[in-house]
């Protein structure tokens, strides 16, 4: 069965060809065609997965053909099937198929129907390539492919200005990250002479810590872009302009997790570079907290979910950063279930409200009381929310608890605190969403009220399936905590953090023990209890504020007006970016023009500067309190935007000049080698 | 020493050819005036010399002595350079034209390609003249001219491919040798027709003389020119007519070779064929109205282009079958 891995991407290709070339003739049949193709891929994936899980295990390479051969460099088109890619394949194909089915109903009647499914299949293809590739080059192709599809799908309703803008934003922001990824790839090749995983990882232990960190950080820049971490997360909330199935598929379950997958895949290198891991942990924790705090006050149902996604991705990176790769992947999986569920659920709500005025369809302030009108959606949504909040025994609890526990045990106490706070916020805003949307009195526009109805079966069936998965998806692979099946299964694919020579080696043996056999003792139990308490506390607070005492939000708003606006306007990050690119302060620019050389130098050294500064910040931040961290984030962002401002002067000639300087540097390297 | 001799011989040849060309061109204008005049029931130039035979010299003197006007708002350098840019390529091409088996300046292995390349530069002068004159008529004329010459250059280039495939060489001498038995015009009538039409367009001759259509654009790109500079344009037009006729003769009519039973020197045969070609040029001018710009383009792209492509395909096919 494993030899048939090449079939997985073939089906989406067929779908793309049919829908792309004959879209006009296919018409509304495009959806079923694409879904069947996705389903066939899923079948193959299931076959392979069953063989991997119940049978062989281990790691298998499926060579297809030699792709690039230039001098000593060669890259082949071959697929790698190992536990890590199996899990990812299951997630991608499973959620992907469900979203296809869902979209058949959701997109019904859209003029771009065949185009949508062409893109969707193209996305599946790219994602499969990303996951299956046995070297970084194939992964990069997939990486770029999903970026392209993301652009196409976000901007799917291109006649809407905001949608096409959001598409462009996603594309451009991703490009910045991709540049980092590319540089990382180059560095890997320079260091090891190969891009194939097996060869690279064989050579990895010989790397110096500094080089490993450099590789790790460069790759992480790519991950930051793709997985929407600080500071490149800005595109994801805007990406909600795309159709909801897209949000569910791309921006919850699959594409944004590509960064997580990539970091996990590269774990042998990361464990050699502890500095890079620290950066990842800090960035992840900050993102988790930061996005969660924004999510507290958003009113757009999809934006709440979007910030929630950013936040959860932060959790995953937190896990990766502290060395708990398996936990990160586990959370990736569970998150795919419940976030896919939540997005599809929100899509169902929006679908029901599509008779409401344009600006009210997604605004929670104009919802409420939908519980009785849409029972299936409500109940599945509730399951998703409980799952994400981290209430046992639902999926989210198992993975999130593991992450927090790992952070704690590896001695990243700051990270752990931030994570815990973020988890509390998560529980709060999810139930705020539930209560505002489904409970209380109905605030929907009068015209739209009679049109509210439960969604068709193609939409509810995926919801139910995902709900089931959200319930059981955590406990089955994740029990007992820290030593569940998934840890054993993933172990061959992931590297272990070596003992010794590590800043936090006090926790290493604990963690390794965790990967091996599970914790025991009161600390673990305490952590579990704390996690449950946090989740329940968040839910309770939401209930208090939005069901029992509905005046409470207003009182809070009166008291913390400034903070509220800061959060509502997302810390003004977009405005800051905007101001820096479009309306640069005139006098500042004038003054800086005279320092043109300095500016360009700054741009060239930008990436190393980022590394230096971020590591310095990581030291300082470890000492700060949560309160300070929140404030610090803002200035942190401001600093980044200051630097990036000069990267985006918008003038081709500046960019070209940087290229020229690049040649200069390369020649220098040649001359003084 | 050999080299010095070589250079000296080449220089003498160039001197002879260039001067002869100038003279021939001057008299070609005379012939044209005479032929057209007789086609139109007139006598043409009769005053200067016997039957106006010295008319070209008088014209040349007149143009030479005329005041040289450069318009006020013109781009001086480009304005002055433009006629040179038209004339020089037309003359440079003579370097590779075979006038007889022995009389030529040089022969190179990409001879025909060289001719096409160099003559494609003539369009520069036209464009420069049109732009530098700073006149609307000139600019319109130049734009038309450039578009016309560029597109018909393509058909010209494609039409010579048929004979080339038969001859198997780009060397003009070898192409002539290849037609010792049968002229290529009998094998390649379609190519010849396309070639001839494209040649008319390339040299801006009727019915494709719209760049200088006097009834619409006064005189096209050389509206603002006078005196010697104008004479340069004139010379260049007739020089390139001669070039293109020579190429036609070489490609389709066996060059300087004549039938064996008429023992005439090669150069005489060449002159006879050239005369016949030139006569057809003049004849057409006397007969045909002028195409409109868009019709010209339509004829080129929608009729000639498919035709010549088909010809190339057929030639290749037949050559593969029978040769």
């Amino acid at each position, binding site marked *: 069965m494993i030899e048939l891995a090449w079939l997985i991407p073939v089906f989406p290709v067929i779908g793309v060809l049919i829908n792309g070339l004959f879209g006009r003739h296919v018409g509304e049949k495009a959806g079923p065609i694409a879904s069947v193709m996705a389903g066939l891929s899923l079948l193959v994936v299931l076959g392979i997965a069953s063989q991997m899980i119940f049978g062989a295990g281990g790691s298998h390479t499926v060579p297809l053909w030699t792709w690039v051969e230039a001098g000593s460099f060669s890259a082949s088109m071959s697929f790698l099937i190992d536990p890590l890619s199996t899990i990812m394949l299951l997630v991608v194909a499973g959620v992907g198929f469900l979203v296809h089915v869902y979209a058949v109903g959701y997109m019904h009647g859209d003029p771009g129907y065949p185009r949508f499914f062409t893109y969707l299949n193209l996305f599946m293809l790219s994602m499969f390539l990303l996951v299956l590739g046995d070297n970084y080059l194939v992964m990069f192709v997939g990486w770029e492919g999903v970026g392209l599809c993301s652009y196409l799908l976000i901007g799917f309703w291109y006649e809407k200005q905001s949608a096409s803008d959001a598409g462009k934003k996603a594309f451009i922001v991703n490009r910045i990250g991709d540049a980092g990824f590319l540089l990382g790839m180059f560095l890997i090749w320079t260091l090891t002479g190969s891009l194939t995983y097996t060869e690279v990882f064989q050579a990895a232990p010989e790397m110096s810590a500094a080089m490993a960190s450099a590789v790790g950080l460069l790759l992480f820049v790519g991950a930051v872009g793709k997985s929407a971490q600080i500071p490149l997360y800005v595109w994801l909330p805007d990406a909600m302009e795309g159709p909801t199935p897209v949000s569910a598929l791309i921006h919850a379950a699959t594409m944004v997790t590509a960064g997580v997958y990539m970091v996990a895949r590269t774990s042998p290198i990361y464990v050699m570079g502890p500095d890079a891991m620290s950066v990842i942990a800090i960035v992840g924790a900050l993102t988790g907290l930061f996005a969660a705090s924004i999510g507290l006050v958003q009113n757009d149902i999809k934006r709440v979910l979007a910030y929630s996604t950013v936040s959860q991705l932060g959790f995953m990176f937190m896990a990766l950063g502290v060395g708990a790769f398996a936990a990160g992947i586990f959370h990736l999986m569970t998150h795919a279930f419940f976030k896919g569920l939540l997005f599809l659920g929100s899509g169902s709500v929006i679908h029901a409200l599509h008779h409401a005025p344009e600006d009210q369809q997604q605004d929670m302030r104009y919802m409420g009381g939908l519980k009785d009108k849409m029972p299936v959606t409500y109940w599945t949504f509730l399951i998703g929310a409980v799952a994400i909040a981290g209430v046992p025994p639902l999926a989210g609890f198992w993975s999130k608890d593991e992450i927090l526990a790992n952070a704690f045990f590896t001695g990243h106490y700051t990270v752990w605190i931030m994570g815990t706070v973020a988890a509390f916020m998560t529980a709060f805003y999810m139930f705020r969403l539930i209560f505002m949307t489904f409970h209380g009195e109905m605030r929907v526009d009068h015209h739209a009220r009679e049109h509210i109805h439960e969604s068709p079966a193609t939409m509810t069936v995926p919801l139910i399936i995902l709900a089931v998965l959200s319930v059981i998806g955590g406990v089955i692979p994740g029990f007992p905590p820290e030593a569940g099946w998934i840890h054993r299964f993933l172990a061959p694919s992931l590297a272990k953090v070596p003992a010794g020579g590590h800043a936090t080696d006090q926790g290493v043996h604990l963690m390794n023990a965790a990967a091996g056999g599970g914790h025991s003792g009161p600390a673990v139990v305490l952590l579990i209890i704390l996690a449950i308490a946090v989740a329940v506390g968040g839910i309770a607070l939401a209930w208090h504020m939005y069901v029992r005492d509905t005046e409470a939000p207003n009182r809070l708003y009166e008291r913390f007006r400034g903070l509220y606006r800061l959060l509502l306007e997302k810390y003004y990050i977009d405005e800051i970016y905007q101001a820096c690119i479009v309306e640069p302060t005139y006098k500042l620019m004038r003054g800086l*023009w005279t320092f*043109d*050389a300095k500016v*360009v130098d700054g741009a060239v050294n930008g990436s190393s500067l980022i590394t230096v500064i971020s590591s310095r910040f990581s030291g300082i931040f470890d000492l700060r309190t949560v309160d300070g961290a929140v404030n610090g984030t803002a200035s942190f962002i401001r600093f980044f935007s200051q630097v990036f401002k000069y990267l985006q002067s918008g003038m081709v*000639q*500046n960019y070209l*000049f940087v290229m*020229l*300087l690049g*040649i*200069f540097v390369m*020649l*220098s390297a*040649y*001359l003084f080698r | 020493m050999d*080299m010095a001799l070589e250079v000296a011989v080449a220089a003498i040849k160039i001197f002879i050819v260039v001067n002869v060309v100038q003279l021939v061109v001057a008299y070609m204008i005379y012939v044209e005036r005479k032929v057209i005049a007789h086609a139109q029931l007139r006598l043409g130039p009769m005053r200067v010399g016997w039957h106006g035979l010295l008319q070209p010299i008088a014209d040349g003197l007149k143009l030479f002595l005329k005041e040289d006007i450069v318009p006020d708002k013109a*781009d001086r*350098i*480009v304005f002055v*350079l433009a006629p040179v840019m038209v004339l020089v390529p037309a003359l440079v091409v003579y370097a590779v034209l075979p006038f007889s088996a022995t009389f030529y300046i040089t022969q*190179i*292995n*990409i001879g025909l*390609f*060289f001719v*096409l*390349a*160099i003559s*494609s*530069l003539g*369009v*520069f002068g036209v*464009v*420069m003249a*049109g*732009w530098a004159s700073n006149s609307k008529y000139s*600019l319109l004329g*130049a*734009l038309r001219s*450039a*578009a016309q010459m*560029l597109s018909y*250059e393509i058909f010209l280039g494609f039409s010579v491919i048929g004979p080339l495939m038969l001859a198997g060489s*780009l060397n003009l001498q070898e192409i002539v040798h290849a037609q010792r038995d049968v002229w290529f015009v009998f094998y390649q009538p379609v190519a010849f027709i396309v070639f001839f039409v494209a040649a008319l367009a390339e040299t801006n001759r009727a019915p494709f003389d719209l760049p200088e259509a006097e009834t619409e654009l006064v005189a096209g790109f050389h509206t603002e020119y006078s005196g010697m500079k104008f004479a340069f344009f004139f010379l260049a037009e007739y020089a390139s007519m001669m070039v293109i006729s020579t190429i036609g003769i070489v490609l389709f009519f066996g060059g300087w070779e004549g039938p064996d039973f008429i023992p005439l020197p090669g150069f005489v045969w060449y002159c006879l064929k050239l005369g016949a070609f030139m006569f057809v040029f003049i004849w057409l001018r006397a007969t045909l109205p002028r195409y409109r710009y868009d019709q010209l383009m339509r004829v080129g792209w929608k009729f000639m282009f498919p035709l010549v492509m088909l010809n190339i395909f057929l030639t290749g096919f037949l050559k593969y079958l029978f040769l």
Partner: protein
Amino acid sequence: MEIYFFYMFAGGMIITSLLMVTRANVIHAALLLVLTFFFLAGVFVLAGAEFLAAVQILLYAGGIMVLYLFSIMLMNVEVAVRMRQWHRQGVVVFVAVVLLGLQIWAVLGEVEFAAPKQWEWSLGATPGNVEAIGAVLYTKFLFPFEVASVLLLAAMIGAIVLAKRRIER
């Protein structure tokens, strides 16, 4: 002998290209570039690439540059002449380019070339001939050749779509 011709052509190219880069009038710049291409064709001939030299003149000088002149004429040259010509980063770039030049000089100083090889051509034709190019182009490089034609087609369509005047619906 050959080498002097080379110096002549090379010197001509450098002078004309320097002038080209510094002209304010675009038409002059374009015409100077044409001159550069002439000299370049001369260099090609010296290097035994007669066919390429002819292609250079036919396509580059005769085709592409006319296209340039054509489109320049559609724009307003005189306004552009009166504007500031140099980019603000000009001085810095100049220094950088000079430095890069020195670096290339240094790199070239390090390289040693083996003795040139002699042409070995089985078809009996001289190198640089159309036949030689054709034989290589249509056998070894057939696929790139086809790709190049597709590229041309794409560029043509792209140019038409871009330059086509928009028609309001």
